[in-house]
């Protein structure tokens, strides 16, 4: 028992020695004429006690069904040169179909176009009817209009600037540069497919069936509805990092990466909620069909700092 305590004590002492010796070595480096001097003298305070106004354009990444371009602005008040509080707000100004959305819509239109009763083959029509019945709940007329989109975002956020420096380009041009990190809550205005439950009378009424035409005129053919969309606000964490390149005393260019993970049904499909383990379809579209997405975007901005006069550190 005693021996165990001795060995444990020696281990602890060894650990302390290891840390202590590292710290002493660091102090030795700071002797000489520059001992006690700050890492940077005369640092230009691009942020300290200044307001930042940055018009910004953002482009979403890795989207399955719709790319969104957001236009907005970032407003910050810089409490110090390394800490700012503010907010970012933006509106989705363009929603662009992905290749998958166009492909699904092409198949959708082909599947639901009427056939020529005089020439159509019964086997082919029957196969089409199977596809129609199996997919009618997930996809309505005009598929792109039922896909989810980000309408707007408002995000109060805190920004920390741990790294400040300068950059030489082609050994000729020098730019003050910083790397910053930010985070906060995001309020995201979403438009996605409205809940749809054929078990409810008002929804079942939208699935109208009529008698099919030849060559399958002994069957009932469902008519494809156009599904409605609804809006909601999702609350999600948002975080990211960015680079600022200061082109002047009060101007700069920013490049930023942002993530906003939250769950949404960006396809409008009935994908989840049923067996097994809620991972299969449950023949209704509701919040169970939402899936977590990382929702990433990159942004470019033109940063302006006020007041325009710049100060420097001692």
């Amino acid at each position: 028992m005693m021996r165990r305590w001795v060995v444990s004590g020696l281990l602890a002492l060894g650990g302390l020695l290891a840390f202590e010796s590292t710290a002493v070595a660091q102090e030795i480096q700071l002797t000489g004429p520059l001992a006690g001097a700050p890492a940077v003298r005369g640092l230009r305070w691009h942020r300290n006690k200044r307001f930042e106004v940055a018009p910004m354009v953002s482009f979403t990444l890795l989207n399955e069904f719709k790319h969104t371009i957001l236009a907005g602005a970032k407003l910050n008040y810089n409490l110090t040169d390394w800490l700012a509080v503010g907010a970012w707000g933006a509106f989705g100004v363009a929603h662009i179909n992905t290749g998958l959305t166009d492909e699904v819509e092409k198949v959708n239109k082909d599947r639901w176009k009427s056939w020529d009763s005089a020439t159509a083959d019964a086997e082919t029509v029957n196969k089409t009817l199977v596809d129609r019945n199996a997919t009618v709940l997930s996809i309505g007329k005009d598929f792109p209009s039922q896909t989810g989109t980000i309408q707007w975002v408002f995000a109060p956020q805190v920004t920390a600037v741990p790294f400040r420096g300068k950059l030489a380009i082609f050994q000729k041009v020098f730019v003050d540069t910083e790397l910053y990190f930010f985070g906060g809550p995001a309020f995201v205005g979403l438009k996605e497919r409205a809940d749809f439950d054929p078990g409810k009378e008002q929804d079942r009424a939208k699935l109208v069936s009529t008698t099919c035409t030849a060559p399958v005129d002994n069957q009932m053919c469902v008519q494809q509805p156009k599904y409605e969309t609804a809006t909601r606000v999702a609350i999600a964490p948002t975080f990211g990092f960015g680079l600022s390149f200061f082109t002047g005393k009060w101007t700069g260019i920013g490049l930023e990466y942002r993530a906003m993970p939250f769950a949404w049904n960006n396809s409008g499909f009935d994908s989840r909620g049923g067996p097994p383990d809620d991972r299969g379809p449950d023949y209704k579209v509701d919040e169970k069909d939402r899936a977590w997405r990382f929702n990433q975007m990159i942004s470019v901005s033109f940063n302006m700092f006020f007041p325009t006069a710049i100060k420097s550190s001692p």
Partner: protein
Amino acid sequence: MKQARAGLLVAMALLAVPAVSTAKPKEPAAPAAGATDTSAAATDPKAGAADPKKGGAAQPVEIDADAPPPGEEPPAVATGDETPPDDGGGALEDICKLDPDACPKVNMAEAAKRPLKAQMYAVQQIYALRARRFEIQPFWALTLNDQFVSHPAPGIALNYYMTNVLAIGANFNWYQGLNSDSEFNAQTRRAVHVGVPLNEYQWSAAGNFTYVPMYGKFAGFGDFIFHWDAYVVGGIGALSSRPIVVFDPRYRNFSYKPKIAFNAGIGVRIFFNRWFAAIFEVRDYIYNEKLENIEDVDVHDEAWRQNESNWLGESKITNHVQAQAGISIFLPFTWEYRLPK
């Protein structure tokens, strides 16, 4: 168990010994700090009032970034008969008195005879020289632009810097066994009966040129300085891929085939010391992908479905964008600057 404790003790001792052996006796801080204050006050008229260590208030001052430093006249037009200023060598002597180890031991007369290249660089004595050094970059890559199949990969790159800014090299990625078909694909197929042709990768290799146009340094938390550079890279090589069977798994079975692939990318390298760095890179591999034939197989007979020439459909120029994070090791570890600082 006893051996484990003994091993830990030895490890602790090893950790402690190198740091102690390299450290020098700690000198009194006060004279050094005083010297700093003096030199700072002598060289910077604002420093005496601004340095909180000297008891002065740290008052920020407004500056005009484009104006010459205080006390300095705008440069006059050279007439050719000025005498060079005499620096007296006082600062050098101070350094030698305070820290003899840091005292430059250069024979200035000999150094002056060495051939000079009449070119001034914006950054003198770059912290980590790359010229005539090898760089080994092991990294891990992640897919950035394929929401259907992710292609993570370990990889390695080897570069030789012919100059400080230009390197020739090669890189290699291994993907097989790591490709991951997203659950989202199955959900889409089930929900709307629409299949998307999918592909997976086996490996890629390329020869590349690297150019380093940007070099900089950052102060971290206002406390420590680290150096970094940014580079562009581009080259040509091959990427081996094959379709993942989606449309007719009963008959189709694809094998990997290499395709010519061009690549271009940008990267950032953060130096921890003069030979060890972290790298972050985004690389786009551009190649002509062969996709699975998406034609409805039910309208064809068995013979058509078994015929391999019917398995592939259209070709498509594909961009495979991947993010890479890794480390960079420069060899040899040390070098000598051509000129003293």
